[in-house]
């Protein structure tokens, strides 16, 4: 018996009881609808997440100073200042897995232009490499600052779109002077818009300037936090018991004599920076880059093998992975719930198919008497169940797609139509039909024609 004819016979059989068919298939409609909606919403949020991650620079590694701790109490990340611009240069020079690296110092203060003012969320002092690391090299307008500007501590800056909007009201800021802490900066470029990051933080609310300028002119910190060992050596305070809260570090080693210093000079740290942003060559080399930087920084910071790192390297990929895993997990959970609804729908199908087989016992007997084999009967009822499920699946696709469009319209959630979801829905509903239709169909195919014909 040809499948096409069988399918038509199945349609006719279902048309004999349209209301029952409708109600039976409702479980499938809802299940498939839920699956489609979940997959479309899931795909939408995951692709918007991917976009966000890309805007943050997926290969970016952030190196931050480690935590200071005393007596088992940790003071949190950044409480020691151990990173220097020289660390950054060394990373760039000696870690082959690193594509580029930029030091960062931060400030938070008011920016004034004319009679307008604004406190940018992010004020970074850095080097031109920062733009490369952040994949931000193409400017909307103007020129980036140069390494020479960094060396000279020139008062130049780049503005993010939010600042342009807030301070200049659409006017081109290039060449204008703004004031930060009463120091005037010349705007030499405008960054391209990036939008919000994963945490919803506005990435365009940013001002970039040479780190030297920010460090020495804006935050006002001088070279006071220089080489710690040197400063310890220079101190002449005596650590007495009366001094309960010593501010200075205890000198554990004898002071170096001037001869020793001359023989074996310690690198003098001019300044500490708050973090280093480095970009690995590609996402695959991130772990290699972390290894290389860890080894290099440990050596540069003179850490013994048993000492913990005095810095931490944070991997954006890790963060983004965690975030995307969370979304995937949520989508999968909801998908599982939708699947359960499909199973419930399948049980409904099985139930009604069993009823149908019993009702049509005489028909089965007759079909067998005129030459239907067991497998023809099996096929007929299986096709009937599949047709029922596919009809439900088609309605479910329409319902689910409509639902996700509604969500997009009303809740403004990102939604993405996925052909894969529709294909899956079709396959799954056909699968449900086959799985749950099999037992009733098999039962029908095993009928004895004589008894079936005699059935009242």
């Amino acid at each position: 018996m040809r499948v096409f004819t069988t399918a038509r016979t199945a349609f006719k059989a279902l048309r004999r009881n349209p209301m029952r068919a409708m109600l039976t298939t409702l479980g499938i409609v809802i299940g498939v609808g839920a699956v489609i909606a979940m997959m479309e919403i899931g795909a939408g949020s995951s692709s918007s997440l991917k976009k966000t991650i890309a805007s943050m620079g997926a290969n970016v590694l952030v190196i931050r100073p480690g935590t200071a701790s005393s007596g088992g109490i940790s003071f949190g990340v950044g409480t020691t200042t151990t990173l220097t611009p020289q660390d950054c240069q060394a990373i760039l020079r000696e870690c082959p897995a690193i594509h580029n690296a930029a030091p960062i110092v931060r400030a938070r203060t008011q920016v004034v232009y004319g009679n307008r003012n604004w406190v940018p969320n992010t004020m970074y002092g850095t080097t031109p490499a920062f733009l490369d690391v952040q994949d931000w090299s193409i400017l909307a307008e103007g020129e980036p600052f140069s390494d020479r500007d960094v060396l000279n501590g020139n008062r130049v800056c780049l503005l993010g779109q939010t600042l342009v909007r807030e301070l200049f009201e659409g006017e081109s800021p290039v060449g204008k002077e703004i004031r930060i802490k009463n120091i005037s900066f010349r705007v030499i470029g405008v960054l391209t818009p990036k939008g919000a990051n994963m945490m919803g933080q506005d990435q365009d609310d940013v001002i970039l300037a040479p780190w030297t300028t920010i460090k020495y002119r804006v935050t006002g910190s001088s070279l006071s936090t220089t080489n710690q060992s040197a400063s310890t050596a220079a101190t002449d305070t005596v650590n007495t018991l009366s001094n309960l809260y010593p501010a200075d570090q205890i000198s554990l080693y004898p002071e170096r004599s001037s001869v020793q210093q001359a023989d074996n000079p310690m690198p003098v740290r001019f300044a500490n920076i708050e973090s280093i942003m480095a970009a690995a060559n590609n996402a695959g080399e991130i772990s290699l880059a972390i290894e290389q930087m860890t080894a290099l920084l440990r050596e540069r910071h003179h850490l013994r093998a048993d000492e913990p790192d005095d810095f931490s390297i944070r991997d954006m990929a890790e963060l983004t992975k965690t975030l995307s895993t969370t979304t995937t997990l949520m989508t999968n959970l909801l998908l599982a719930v939708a699947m359960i609804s499909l199973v419930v729908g399948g049980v409904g199908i099985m139930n009604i198919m069993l009823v149908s087989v019993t009702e049509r016992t005489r028909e089965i007997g007759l079909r067998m008497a005129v030459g239907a084999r067991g497998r023809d009967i099996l096929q007929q009822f299986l096709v009937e169940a599949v047709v029922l499920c596919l009809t439900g699946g088609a309605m479910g696709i329409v319902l689910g797609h409509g639902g996700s469009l509604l969500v997009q319209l009303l809740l403004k959630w990102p939604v993405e139509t996925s052909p894969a979801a529709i294909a899956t829905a079709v396959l799954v509903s056909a699968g449900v039909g086959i799985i749950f239709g099999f037992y009733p169909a098999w039962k029908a195919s095993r009928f004895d024609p004589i008894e079936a014909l005699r059935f009242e």
Partner: protein
Amino acid sequence: MELIELHGIEKTYQMGDISVPVLKGISLSIRQGELIALTGSSGSGKSTLMNILGCLDRPTTGEYWLDSQETSRLSSDERALLRNRKLGFVFQSFNLLARTSAIENVAMPLSYAAENLSDREARGRAAEMLGRVGLADRLDHYPSQLSGGQQQRVAIARALINRPPVLFADEPTGNLDSRTSEEVLQMFERLNSEDGITIIMVTHDPKVAGYAQRVIRIDDGLIQGDVPAAGPESEAQGGAV
């Protein structure tokens, strides 16, 4: 070799520990083109024999040769094929598919046939068959819109759609009044004489048996009489004796 040959057919039903012998050794041969009535008291085993003849059931022992083929050991799929190609059935209660038009009811066995007819061919053949049973103007009627006699004629058309050489009818007129019974029986006679179809029908009614050329009487699972008859009139008298 004859069209149908039975040799020592026995059928015993097993009801738990008790075995119920229904057919106790039936030997019989039927030639191509015969019109046979099978009679006997209720419970004598007529329907059981018909089921075996119709390859719906298998005998417990004995041989059944149909068209030079031993059928009693065939698998159920092989028997289904045989039923489809060589045997037609007419039932007492018509057994038409409800809410399915006459023409589709008639075309139904074609969907299980080995030859794959197109939809149009199938409908054409079904319409032709309905024409032969005098229902050319009732093609799209549903069973509920047809009289009992018409329904039975649709069932006959369905039984003949695959052009089988043999037609079985278990009390075909049991649900019909005498006038429509006559219609159906005349149809059997015509099919038998014009198309040479072998017809074997079970009946209680001597008047129905009168249409047959040969009357086989079964009693308690054994053949008790096998009377050839000249014609309907003399048979009606013979039945009364």
